[in-house]
């Protein structure tokens, strides 16, 4: 086909775009993927037995808040990287700031605690499981988010994959908080962060393959 004819056919096909379609397309995956993760917590991991009580405490919301902020940062990055020439920098800055915040708080609490208690604070009772559970719970959101981003026009695929992974990891960690009974800041700063980082790493790993579009 001649290029001029192609242009004519594209012009004939032109319809107004829905503003916010990129944001909406990616945000919807959190709802769907989050619902699956929630179902997994209910039937597989189980809610924490003291949920009602814990919801009155500060640490429960600290964990949820940290996860939500990282999900938002990942969303921001992904929303930018789903566009050609989009820059993830603002989202990345938010993620790093949030991480630095909880790390500092965690270190502060550790420093104030008696040395004998420090290991227990840091490792809690579930440090081996926590990152793996978060990674597992992130899978549905990650898969959907990658499909969504691919429909747009990412041009830096590895980075866009990592952003989708961070987003999915944040969503998963927020929901995992319904199961997890850990209460230390150092635990949150280390193992939650590791879980979300693993999810981002998986996203980065599969991004170049999963996000390639034609």
């Amino acid at each position: 086909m001649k290029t001029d004819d192609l242009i004519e056919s594209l012009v004939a096909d032109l319809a107004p775009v829905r503003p916010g379609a990129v944001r909406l397309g990616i945000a919807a995956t959190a709802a769907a993927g989050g619902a699956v993760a929630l179902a997994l917590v209910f039937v597989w991991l189980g809610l924490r037995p003291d949920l009602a009580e814990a919801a009155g405490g500060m640490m429960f919301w600290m964990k949820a808040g940290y996860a939500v902020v990282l999900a938002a940062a990942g969303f921001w990055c992904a929303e930018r990287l789903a566009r050609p020439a989009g820059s993830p920098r603002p989202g990345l800055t938010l993620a790093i700031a949030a991480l630095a915040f909880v790390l500092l708080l965690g270190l502060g609490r550790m420093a104030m605690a008696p040395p004998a208690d420090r290991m227990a604070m840091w490792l809690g009772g579930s440090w081996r499981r926590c990152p793996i559970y978060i990674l597992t719970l992130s899978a549905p959101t990650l898969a959907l988010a990658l499909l969504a981003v691919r429909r747009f026009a990412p041009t830096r695929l590895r980075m866009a994959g990592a952003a989708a992974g961070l987003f999915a990891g944040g969503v998963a960690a927020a929901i995992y908080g319904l199961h997890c009974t850990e209460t230390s800041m150092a635990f949150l700063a280390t193992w939650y962060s590791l879980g979300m980082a693993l999810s981002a790493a998986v996203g980065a790993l599969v991004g170049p393959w999963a996000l390639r579009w034609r």
Partner: protein
Amino acid sequence: MRRAQDGDAAAWRELLGELSRRLSVFFARRLGPAHAADIEDLVQETLLAIHRRRVTYDAAQPFTAWAHAVARYKLIDFWRRRRIRVHVPLETFEDSLWAPPDGSAEARLDLERVLGHLPERQQRLIRDVKIEGLSLAEAGARAGMTEGAAKVSLHRAMAALTARMREREDG
């Protein structure tokens, strides 16, 4: 582009026409004579992508950077499909398509907007040296300063410009 996103067909026809000319030049330079036959295919693929994925253009960003990134993606995809790996340094893209010799519409608009934020003296320097191609000494003489002073001032202006551009991309 914004008008096209709202559904203005005439604006879209004009923009796609202009883009197809620029893209031909862009791909011709990148592909070299050995792949001259593929230029039109690539141009069409890129136009198609720009059309189908126009929703990803954000009006707050420079349009040229957006279209450029699509073209680059298509080019890399082309090489990848042919299993040819070429090392394409990023810098070579900077001055290629989007600062066309005729200084035409879109790129010029973006440039004018960022230049407008600099002090007038620095604007003049950038125009004289980077766009019109005068030497530092000539541009300095025009602005009434020594070559050394012109060099320092130009350097600062470029730094400010880069910072400004980066800010816009992040926006």
